[in-house]
C-alpha cells in the first residue's frame, strides 16, 4: 500500500494506526507546515540584509527608479568604493576609511585594557579576599546598570580635566571605565570556580602576586576571555552616544561617521553608498562573532556550570 491517500497519512501522523493496520513512512504535514513557517521567518529576518547587499551593489538610478527589491541589473562596486574613500563625511570628502581606523584605534586598546583590568579585579576579588570585598564587587557591578546618558556631563568635565576630550584616548578612557564593570563580573565569577589550591601551590613554589596571575590564572582563562572580548568589542564598536558626545572631527568613530555620511549627503540621497557604509560598519562585529562565536557559548557554559 505505497500509494496511501493523504487523509490516511494525516491520521498516521497523529498517532492513530491506519485502517490497513500497517504503519509506513509517509508525508508528515505538520512538519511541512513547520518548515514553511520557519522558512518564512528566515526570509523575513534576512530581508534587510538582502536589501542592503543588493542595493549597495547597484547604481543609484536603479534604486531611484523604484527597483529597490530587485537584484542589481548592472553589478558595480562603485558605491563601496565611494563609501570607503570618496564620499562626503561631515566637511571632508574622505569616505569612511579614516573613521574605520579611528574605531579600531579606539576599540582594540579599550577591549584589551578593560579585559585585563577585569581579569585582575576578578583575581583579587576571589583569590586575595579582603575585608569589604563583596561590597566593593557590588559597587563595581553597579557600573553595569548606570545608563550612559547620566554620565555624559560629568564625563565631559572629567575628560576636560584630564585634557583628553575630543581624542581617541578620551573615548578609550570612557569605554574602559564602562567595560571594567562587565569584565570584572565575568572574571570574578569564572575565578570563583578556579581552584584556590592552585594559587596556594604557586605561592609555596615561590610565585608572587603578578607571577601567579599571568603564569597560572591567565593561561587558564581562555573561554571567559573570549566571552569578555566579544561582549566588549560589540558594545564599544557599536557605541554611538559616547562617540557622538566625546569626539572631534578627526577622532570620530565609525558609527558617528556613518551617521554623518547619511546626514551630510548634499542633493540626491546616495542610498547605495549609505547601504555599503552600513554594511562596512557591521562587518567587524560580524567577523568577531563568526570567528569566536562557538567559544562564546562554550565560555558562558563553563562559567555557569562550574560555578
Amino acid at each position, binding site marked *: 500500500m505505497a500509494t496511501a491517500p493523504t487523509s490516511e497519512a494525516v491520521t498516521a501522523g497523529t498517532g492513530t494506526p491506519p485502517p490497513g493496520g500497517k504503519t509506513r513512512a509517509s508525508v508528515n504535514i505538520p512538519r511541512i507546515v513547520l518548515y514553511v513557517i520557519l522558512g518564512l521567518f528566515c526570509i523575513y529576518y534576512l530581508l534587510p540584509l538582502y536589501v542592503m547587499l543588493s542595493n549597495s551593489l547597484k547604481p543609484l538610478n536603479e534604486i531611484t527608479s523604484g527597483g529597490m527589491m530587485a537584484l542589481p541589473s548592472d553589478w558595480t562596486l562603485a558605491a563601496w568604493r565611494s563609501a570607503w574613500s570618496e564620499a562626503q563625511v561631515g566637511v571632508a570628502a574622505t569616505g569612511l576609511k579614516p573613521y574605520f581606523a579611528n574605531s579600531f584605534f579606539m576599540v582594540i586598546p579599550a577591549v584589551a585594557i578593560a579585559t585585563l583590568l577585569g581579569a585582575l579585579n576578578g583575581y583579587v576579588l576571589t583569590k586575595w579576599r579582603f575585608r569589604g570585598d563583596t561590597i566593593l564587587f557590588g559597587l563595581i557591578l553597579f557600573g553595569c546598570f548606570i545608563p550612559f546618558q547620566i554620565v555624559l556631563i560629568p564625563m565631559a568635565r572629567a575628560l576636560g580635566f584630564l585634557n583628553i576630550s575630543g581624542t581617541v584616548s578620551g573615548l578609550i578612557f570612557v569605554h574602559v571605565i564602562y567595560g571594567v564593570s562587565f569584565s570584572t563580573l565575568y572574571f570574578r565569577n569564572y575565578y570563583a570556580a578556579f581552584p584556590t589550591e592552585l594559587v*596556594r*601551590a604557586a*605561592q609555596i613554589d615561590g610565585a608572587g602576586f603578578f607571577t601567579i596571575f599571568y603564569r597560572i590564572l591567565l593561561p587558564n582563562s581562555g573561554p571567559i576571555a573570549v566571552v569578555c572580548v566579544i561582549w566588549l568589542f560589540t558594545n564599544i564598536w557599536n557605541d554611538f552616544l559616547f562617540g557622538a558626545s566625546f569626539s572631534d572631527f578627526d577622532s570620530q568613530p565609525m558609527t558617528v561617521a556613518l551617521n554623518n555620511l547619511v546626514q551630510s549627503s548634499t542633493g540626491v540621497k546616495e542610498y547605495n553608498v549609505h547601504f555599503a557604509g552600513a554594511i562596512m560598519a557591521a562587518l567587524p562585529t560580524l567577523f568577531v562573532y563568526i570567528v569566536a562565536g562557538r567559544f562564546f557559548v562554550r565560555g558562558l557554559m563553563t562559567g555557569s556550570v562550574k560555578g
Partner: protein
Amino acid sequence: MGFLDIDNVTKSYGAVKVLNETEISVEEGEFLVLVGPSGCGKSTLLNMIAGLEDVTSGDISINGRRVNDVKPAERNIAMVFQSYALYPNMTVRGNISFGMEMHGVPKAEREEKIAKVADLLQITNLLDRKPGQLSGGQRQRVAMGRALTRDPDVFLFDEPLSNLDAKLRVDMRTEIKKLHQKLGTTIVYVTHDQIEALTLSTRIAVMFGGNVQQLGTPQEIYDNPANMFVAGFMGSPAMNLLPARLERVNGAMCAVLKVGDGSTITVPFPRAEDLTEGADIVLGIRPEAMTDPEGADRDSNALTETELPIDVVEPAGSDTYVTVALGGKDAIGRFRAHNPAKAGQPARFTFDMAKAVAFDPETETRLA
C-alpha cells in the same frame, strides 16, 4: 627545641577560635600525622605551618628559625594538596620545574633534578603530558615529584590520598612510607583516616574541637587512648566503650558489666587496682581483646572466659565480628574466621583485661 616547633599556637577567625593553644615539637626525620574529624583544626594548623594562613598567637619555628612572618616560599617547605593542585596549562615537566624556576635554579640543574625525581617516582614517560591526561594515581605522583625537587626541611601533606580509590590509596600509602624511609625528611601529614595515621606515622596528634587530644606514638595512642574521643576515633571497628562498675571480689578489683538479659558478669580488672571501689567507669575494650577462647593472646596474664548470647555475626573474611549486648551498649568482639558462632546462640568469650582501659564517665579521660 625540636626541628619543627609549634609553640602555644592559636588561630581565630574574628571571634571564632578554631585552634586552641597547641604545643607540638617534631624531631628531624619524624613522620607526624595530624588526624581528626572535619573541622578539628588539623588543616588550619598545617596551613599555618605552610604560611598560607597567619598565626593568631604563638610561634612556629622550623630548623631553629621563627617563621611566623616568613613567606611560604621562603620557609623551605613543600606541600602536597588534596586536589594535587597541578597547573593545568603546564606539562608535567613544567609543573615540576615551576618551583625551581621561581627560585632561580639554573636550567641545567632543573633538568637534572626533574630527571632524578621522575625516575624515583617512575613518571619519566609522563613528563610531556598535561595533567588532564593523567589518572588520579599519576597526578598524585607528579604532585609528590613537584614537592620532592625542593629538598625541603619539612614536607606537608594535606589529605593527599583522599581523592584516590580504595586500592590505589593503599598502594600510595605504602609508597609514601617507602619514600619517607628512603629520604628521611620530616613530614607533617594531615588525614581524617585513622588507618593512614596508624600505618604511616612515627607520632600521631589526634585532634578534636581545636585541641590536640593526645600526642604519642601509634602504639601509645592505640593501646592507651587519653580519653574516650581518642578511644572511639582510632581503630576499626572502634574500641567498645561500656558502662561498668568497679567491685572488689575476693580481694581482686573487678569490672561488673550488665548483659543483655539483665544478669551481670564480673571480670577481674587488675589495671584498675588503684581506683576507688564502687565507682562507675566506662570500660574501654578493643574488639581484639574480646575473642573466642582459642583466639585469645595466651601470653596475657588477665584472661577471663565467660559465656555471652550473640546478637549479630558479621563474617569479614579474615575475621568474624560478633555483636553482644554489654553494659547497655552493643559490644563488638573479634573471632577468628570460620567460627561456628551463630546469632541468637550463646558463645564462649575470652576477655583480655590487660588490654582494657577505664575512663571516667564524667570527664571522659582515662583513669587506668
